[in-house]
Every structure is written in C-alpha cells, then in structure tokens.
C-alpha cells in the first residue's frame, strides 16, 4: 500500500521564519506535489516535481520554493513565513498519470 508521510501534523511558526515541510513517499513515484487547502478554495497546487531536481510552478507558487534532491523526498520551503500562509498543506505522489496518493496533511499556523 502506498504511504505518503508528512513530517508534522501540526506546526506553529512565527512571521518571518523560514519553514520547511517535508514529504516522503515509499512507492518510487515520479511525480510529487504540494497543495494548500483552504475553505471554499479546494486544493490549490503550489509546486510539483516530475523527477529528481525537476520542478514546475503550480497555480500559487509565490512565497514558496521546493527541493527534490532524492526521488522519495519533496520539501516545501516558506522562505519568510507570513500570516496569509496559515493553511493546511497536503503532499501527494503519483506514478505518471495514475491517481494521486495524499499524505495526512500539515496544519500550519503562522503567528
């Protein structure tokens, strides 16, 4: 069974901090994704990666960066956290055009 593991379930940080969210998948999937989920807005894609060291911007990349140094790990970085980045962050992985498998999410609060 596919396992996507996000490093934290809940996280509280302060404005201006650099924040790292980590995601690991165990199924050798090529694609990995970071979304944020806000009420009424659904899942919005921040960044995705289709191979090691490869990345593409999603719909809302501003204020975020990503890193994929190993196939199984995809990191989301908030360079200087702001209160409008308080949200639920979901990581997902997939093999090519197959369905996406999601982690349990990280609920991030920026104070």
């Amino acid at each position: 069974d596919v396992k996507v593991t996000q490093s934290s379930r809940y996280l509280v940080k302060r404005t201006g901090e650099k924040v790292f969210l980590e995601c690991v998948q165990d199924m050798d999937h090529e694609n990995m994704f970071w979304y944020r989920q806000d009420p009424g807005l659904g899942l919005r894609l921040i960044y995705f990666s289709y191979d090691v060291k490869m990345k593409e911007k999603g719909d809302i990349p501003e204020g975020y960066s990503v890193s994929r140094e190993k196939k199984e790990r995809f990191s989301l970085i908030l360079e200087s956290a702001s209160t409008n980045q308080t949200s639920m962050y979901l990581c997902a992985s997939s093999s090519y055009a197959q369905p996406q498998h999601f982690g349990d999410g990280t609920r991030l609060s920026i104070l």
Partner: protein
Amino acid sequence: GQQVMQIPQYQHVQEGEDFTTYCNSSTTLSNIQWYKQRPGGHPVFLIQLVKSGEVKKQKRLTFQFGEAKKNSSLHITATQTTDVGTYFCAGRVRGGTSYGKLTFGQGTILTVHP
C-alpha cells in the same frame, strides 16, 4: 490557466435522499478523477473517467464524463451517513511534463442528516 469549477459548494441532505455534484472545466480534459475527503482526513481516489460520454458506477455512486470532455458529475443514490465528506473532481490536461498535474475543483461538502 485551466480552471475547474465545482458546484454546489455545500449540500445538506436527509439520509436516503439523492445527491449530485457537478464539475466544469474551462478547457477540454484528457481525463477526470474524483476524490473523497472524510472530515479530518485526506483526499482518497475514487475513480477515473477517460472516454467521452463515459459512465461508471460504484455501488450507489454514478460518475459521468461529458461528451465534450469538459464536464463531469457524481451522483449518489440514497445517501447514507457514511457518505459524509468533501467530494472533489480533478481534471488532467494532455501531454508534456505537466501530464501528471491535476487541477482540482473547489469541492462539494456533503452533510447527511440521519
């Protein structure tokens, strides 16, 4: 960019009533997927539709893909309390490095009253 609109945003039903959520894309899709997210959980894949006009059933759930491959619907017959959650459609565009990418609708939050 590609947009996927989903309505309604909320739906409250009595147990045993039917439920439908609709999804419309601004562009023609390669295929469409549906996901369910239980309260406090993460989205879980339900089904994928690929062909124009395709209809698929999973027990009380019926999924349709429009002839133009720009719209889709999910219909639940005789809802049960276990159907509670948020239902998302997600469309995929054709080709390129973005082929793995999905654009999600806003989701429909279904509440079922016993």
